């Protein structure tokens, strides 16, 4: 089976979409990442990544109905697909494996 590959930023974006649940779209995802990680994120970078993840099949999207907000322009909401969830779990799994394999003294050095 082909192994899922997620870039670090892709992982962050994918996770954020999962966190935001039903209300994930460009603006919320960007702001959420900024708040949670404290790093400034390019608006267009987020959009690009969202689209790339959709092309990879980890996200699906649908357009919302028009609202009075933002000049009546519709939003594109993203949800994580099964494949996306699997990829996240897999990444988490690999991390945990790696953490588990750390020798105890190294763990102590890191302050844990």
């Amino acid at each position, binding site marked *: 089976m082909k192994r899922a590959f997620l870039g670090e930023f892709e992982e962050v974006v994918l996770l954020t979409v999962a966190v935001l649940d039903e209300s994930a779209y460009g*603006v919320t995802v960007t*702001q959420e990442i900024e708040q949670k990680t404290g790093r400034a994120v390019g608006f267009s970078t987020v959009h690009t990544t969202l689209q790339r993840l959709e092309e990879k099949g980890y996200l699906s999207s649908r357009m919302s109905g028009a609202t009075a907000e933002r000049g009546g322009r519709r939003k594109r909401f993203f949800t994580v697909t099964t494949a996306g969830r699997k990829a996240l779990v897999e990444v988490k799994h690999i991390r945990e494996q790696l953490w588990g394999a750390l020798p105890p003294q190294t763990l102590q050095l890191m302050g844990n």
Partner: protein
Amino acid sequence: MTPPRLADQFLKFFCAPDRLEEVQGDLHEEFAYQVRRVGERRARWRYWRDVLGFFRPFAIRRKPGDYSPNPLFSPSMIQNYVKIAWRNLVKNQTYALINVTGLGLGIGAALLIFALVRYHYAIDKHHQKYDRIYRVLTEFVTPEGVFDIAGVPYAMGKALQNDHPAIENLAMIDIYRDPLVAIPMPTGPDRKFKEAHQMGAFVQPAYFRIFDYHWVVGGPTELAQPNTVVISAENATKYFGTTQVIGKVIKLNAVMNTRIVGVFEDYRDNTDFAYPIMASWASLREFYGRPLTEGFDNINGDTQCFVSLNDGFSKADWDRQMMAFVKKYKPHGVKDTRFPMQPLRDIHFSTDTGGVSQGLIWSLFAIGVFLIITASINFVNLATAQALNRSREVGVRKVLGSTRGQLFWQFIGETALLTLAATALALLFFQIGQQLAQERLHGAFRFTFYYDVSVIGWLALIVVVVIGLSGLYPALVLAGFKPAMALAGRITTRQVGGFSVRRGLVITQFAISQMLIVGMIVVASQLQYIQTKDLGFRQEAILTVRLPSSPKQDISKMNTFRNLALAIPEVKKLSYSVSGPPQSGWISQTMIKFDTRPEPEKFTTQQQFIDADYLNVYGLKLVAGRNLQPADTAREVLVNEAFVKALGIRDPAKVLGKLMHNGRGLEIVGVLKDFNQNNLKSGIAPLYMTTRATSYFYANLQLHNGNFRRVIEQLEKDYNGLYPDSYFSAQFVDEQLQEFYVQEQTMASLVNFFAGIAVIIGGLGLYGLVLFMAAQKTKEIGVRKVLGASIRDILWLFGREFFRLIVVAFVIATPMAWWVMSHWLQDFVYRIELDWWIFALAMLLTALITLLTVSYESIKASFANPVKSLRSE
């Protein structure tokens, strides 16, 4: 608080439409948030940064959709357009055929013309120094005007080199015609090659630093030495069967052995300086058997001087320097001699020095443009005529949602399809025309085409122009139909641009045809005129035989030849001379002093060497004095009336007995009635004639009627016995005279050919138009006939329309044709008058052509049985 508008517009411009909404929405929302967070100014900056951040593939790339955003290009619509276009063609085969043939003819002929024009403008362009190469001319200022000679004195080269170190390269060249090449054989006689139509030359090595040559083997380095020669690959192969011929010896004109030191690549047909045999300048003295003439008084059109100048050298600099030059080397010529420079790009078009007339090229170009206009007008006429039949289609399409733009492009597309079909036909015509031109015109003046990018470029340009000219108007008209009217079938000819536009077009066409016909008539009658004009000397049944081109004629051999020739019963008289009365190209000019006048005369004189029988053979008349006494050296001279006039003396008898000094004094014994010693393009120049047997170059034989072929055969036998090293060449004077007008004749045939095509295209258009008129008027004719109209009345219905148009066209065409043609005639000293009958004839011819094309259909229409045409109602 809105985000920067410009940024928004930019986003709209590049962003894919299917993503724009969400992206812009997000951006706006973010903007509002940032305004609250960091203030408006910084939010605007951010907005810009974000927008620019989107300038990347994911946002720009368009999603391929099921429906094209522009329905015009959707596959099914295009399919439909093609289908409808095809159905229309099939339904109206006659129109389609006329359209495509007319356009094809027009495009093909125009392409031929443009290829010809481009050929003439590409001559010698391949030389790297093209822009810096000049030929030094000799210019004489005479009371009759200024005229240029391509040649310069022999001494020019050295003098220029001494006085103008600024000249980068300078090379003298001496040209001679019809070289005779002999290859010495170890055993047996030499193999001889008579290179008629080729030119030989003597050049200085610098010639090859000015002009670019590609060497197959060897090179020009040794060409500074005497008795060396370089030849073209073609000639080398002809003589030796190979190009590896360095060190081999060829004998030129039976007088001089030369060693081959280089072989250069063949000339393509794109140079004015094709000299396949170029010997070293240092050999010239041996070739002519005498030292080169010193001084600046003897000028020969075949001794030329080329220079390449450094950048930044202006014509004004040159002219200023040359004034001092003349003062130094030719003090008596300060008033009437100049040595201007002629840029290489002008050489091909300078008629004075034997070039092609630029006027001719441009008049052909104009005809080419006319051809395209005429063909396009046909198209417009036929297309608008057909427009009525398509009004329902337009109505239906509009009702179903077609926009005006869509319909417009549909019809332009149809025009483009037809034009492309016509282009295929045009390429065929182009091929045929090219072949025809090569066969008919080759040798007359060069007519070569290159299939290169520029011709393809021309073709593309022509196609686009034709599509624009012929498609635009009908497309606009058709696309502008109102659907309600169109569907109700209430569109009439009035809506189809009305008659006025159509009439305007037909008038333009008629006017073009009439102008071309006037041109044809004028050119033809001018040629007829100069060819049959009395030149003042006998032309019929005079045969000229060339003597060997040796530096000094052997007088005893000439006497023997005279006796042998006179023994032939058909030969009436024989005279020797340096050339016949018509001198083509080679004119010996000189300055003279008259009587006791201290200063040289301010005019240049042509000189001729003749014997005492010359006047008899050519039937020249004396107005005063007597003929020359037979003599072998110059003692007495005859002058012409122009000479006397140039001296400022009124009575010819007054010059008799006076001395004319040209080196030494010669007594004037007679004055000849003026005759045209040059051609009729130039006037009669002052001329003197004297005896000088060693300089004779031609035998002029007056023949009785009889078997000329037998005479020539006998002469050839005698000649070859007498001059075994030379070769026999004979030509009749009247044929020789025809050659003067080769360019005019070529022009006449080209003008006739292309103008003929234009007229044919015009005729095709008329035919189509009358077909349409007949179809439209079927009912009208039926009603009229029922009401008692005679066939003549019906015919007049058609005739009246066309007659009116012809008259209006005549009014427009006549002044234009008059202006153009009187301009052309300016080139001729002897010319016809532009009489009214020429224009009347042109109009008559146009009327006749119209009658021919129009009559059949109109007669058919007028004879139609009204029962048939009215029954359907």
